[in-house]
């Protein structure tokens, strides 16, 4: 029981991170029909920016966090403006290769700036782990869970209550229709990129204290976040949250009760399972589209 709870806690921590990454994929897919294979690299940028700002420049935690998110979101928007918008005939295969190229480029940039070493920073608040029924819950895990809850609530309100959020939803439902009623589609795409990469930065900055961050951490995190998004239903906000947590918890259980070596395989087995059984994901309703 104590063991189970411990796995649940560590699963929830990872799951929350996957959920935020999955949210990034989903938000972007929603408004642009695009899968950003460089998304994991923006998570890496978030983590390493956080490291530089706090440990390197000595900036306090909270401002460092917001500066990180702003910088990475700006980088994401720049990426959209320079590499995605100029594409004349945006076919998925072409976009996949462009984003893969971007991921290699960003990884290379990360290596140039931060070197090949792994970095870490102290936790947000230096509190001893919380003891619940014999299982230990790290204070940083609580922080991550708080951040995810706030983000989810914020995004939900953004999509339901603000005009911009509604305009983005409109773009997701029908691009031409949105354009006809006067929604500036190009700005919405730019905003979606900023939002999505900003979410990636949040994930990166939150895990900087509990993992070693290095220039090559992004790929696997990105792929797993993507699996989470698919699991819950690509394009759905609650789906991304559900999928991320489910993936994290199942992965932790797999490590605990099956084998730690195959940890990374859990995500991809779940991905295949979901694709074969219910391609639209657990909460998704949209029909499976073709190119």
């Amino acid at each position, binding site marked *: 029981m104590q063991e189970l709870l411990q796995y649940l806690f560590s699963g929830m921590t990872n799951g929350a991170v996957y959920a935020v990454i999955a949210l990034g994929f989903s938000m972007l897919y929603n408004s642009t029909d695009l899968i950003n294979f460089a998304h994991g690299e923006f998570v890496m940028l978030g983590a390493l920016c956080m490291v530089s700002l706090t440990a390197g420049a000595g900036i306090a935690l909270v401002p460092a966090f917001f500066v990180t998110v702003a910088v990475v979101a700006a980088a994401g928007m720049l990426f959209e403006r320079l590499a995605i918008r100029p594409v*004349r005939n945006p076919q998925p295969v072409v976009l996949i290769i462009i984003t893969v*190229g971007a991921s290699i*480029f960003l990884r290379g940039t990360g290596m140039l700036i931060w070197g090949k070493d792994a970095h870490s920073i102290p936790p947000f608040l230096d509190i001893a782990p919380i003891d619940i029924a014999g299982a230990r819950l790290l204070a940083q895990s609580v922080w991550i869970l708080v951040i995810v809850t706030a983000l989810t609530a914020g995004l939900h309100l953004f999509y339901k209550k603000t005009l911009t959020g509604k305009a983005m939803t409109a773009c997701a439902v029908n691009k031409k229709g949105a354009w006809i009623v006067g929604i500036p589609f190009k700005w919405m795409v730019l905003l979606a990129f900023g939002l999505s990469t900003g979410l990636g930065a949040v994930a990166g900055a939150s895990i900087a204290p509990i993992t070693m961050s290095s220039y090559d951490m992004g790929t696997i995190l990105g792929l797993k976040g993507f699996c989470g998004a698919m699991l819950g239903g690509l394009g759905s906000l609650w789906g991304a949250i559900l999928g991320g947590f489910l993936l994290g918890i199942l992965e932790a259980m797999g490590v605990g009760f099956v084998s730690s070596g195959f940890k990374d395989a859990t995500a991809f087995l779940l991905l295949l399972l979901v694709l074969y059984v219910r391609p639209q994901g657990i909460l998704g309703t949209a029909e499976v589209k073709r190119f």
Partner: protein
Amino acid sequence: MNDKYLPAIYTAFALGIAFLGWRIDNAYYLQLLIFIGLNTLLALSLNMLMGYAGQISLGHAAFYGIGAYVTAILTTTYQIPPVLALPAAVGAAMVIAWIVGMPTLRLSGYYLGMGTLGFGMIVHIVLREWSSVTGGASGLVGIPPLSVGPVEFASNKSYFFLVWAVVLAVIIFCRRIIDSRVGRALCAIHDGEKAAAAVGVNTRRLKLQVFVLSAGIAALAGFLYAHLVFFISPGSFGFMASIKIVTMVVIGGMASIWGALFGASLLTLLPEWLHAFSEFEMVVYGLVLMVVMIFMPRGLTRGVVDIYERYRKTHDRQ
């Protein structure tokens, strides 16, 4: 490409290989050309699936890896001669492709891409973690050189001729399929799956067949790779390897056999040229990929033509 000239083109190609093999003695250049040959095989195999049938695969390196690992395990652990390991390596990849393809090829678009990606990652993880059989992350060493009876392909030169003979054979083979009824059916699937089904193409069976064929060619490349380098590790068959194959096909130009050859050559040589950039290698590589795809989304070979035509149009107007 006109059918009338095909025999002449093949002959020229064979003569070109013979000439290169005869002239080049530098071990480094020979090695490079061998790798271009292997990558051409990979690009050709994916091109059949992606360029002609329009089915994307983001996990093709898995079949490359299966081919390499099956022959490596059989020839080192079980001491089976490489010639006998060849059918096992190719056969294993084809059987796995058949099993995996049945549920996966029902998907389309991004979902198919993700399904194949997931499969590729799982194979990569199995190669890395199943240490008792695959040697784990450190890989397998001591793979014997390839020999057929008394002929041993141990030198770089003999291997060069072997690999390029295989490439030529596969090119002719693929060309024959494309020019056949099956090839036209594949192109029909590419243009519209429902329309193809409506005119009587058994789309599901045909997609599975081309997937299995494609896996077989990739495994053949893996087999040749294992007996070239004598040492394999899971790192060569991961996600980035799969992406590299896709890139070769797309940069070269999809649905073109010579495009596959061109894309494979370029992506094999590019890292060699980029060594000059040392630390900036990754940055430049990523930039090249992005810039080519932004300005020439149909690949370099067609991209140059497209840009020329755009230039002529604007020029004529003035």
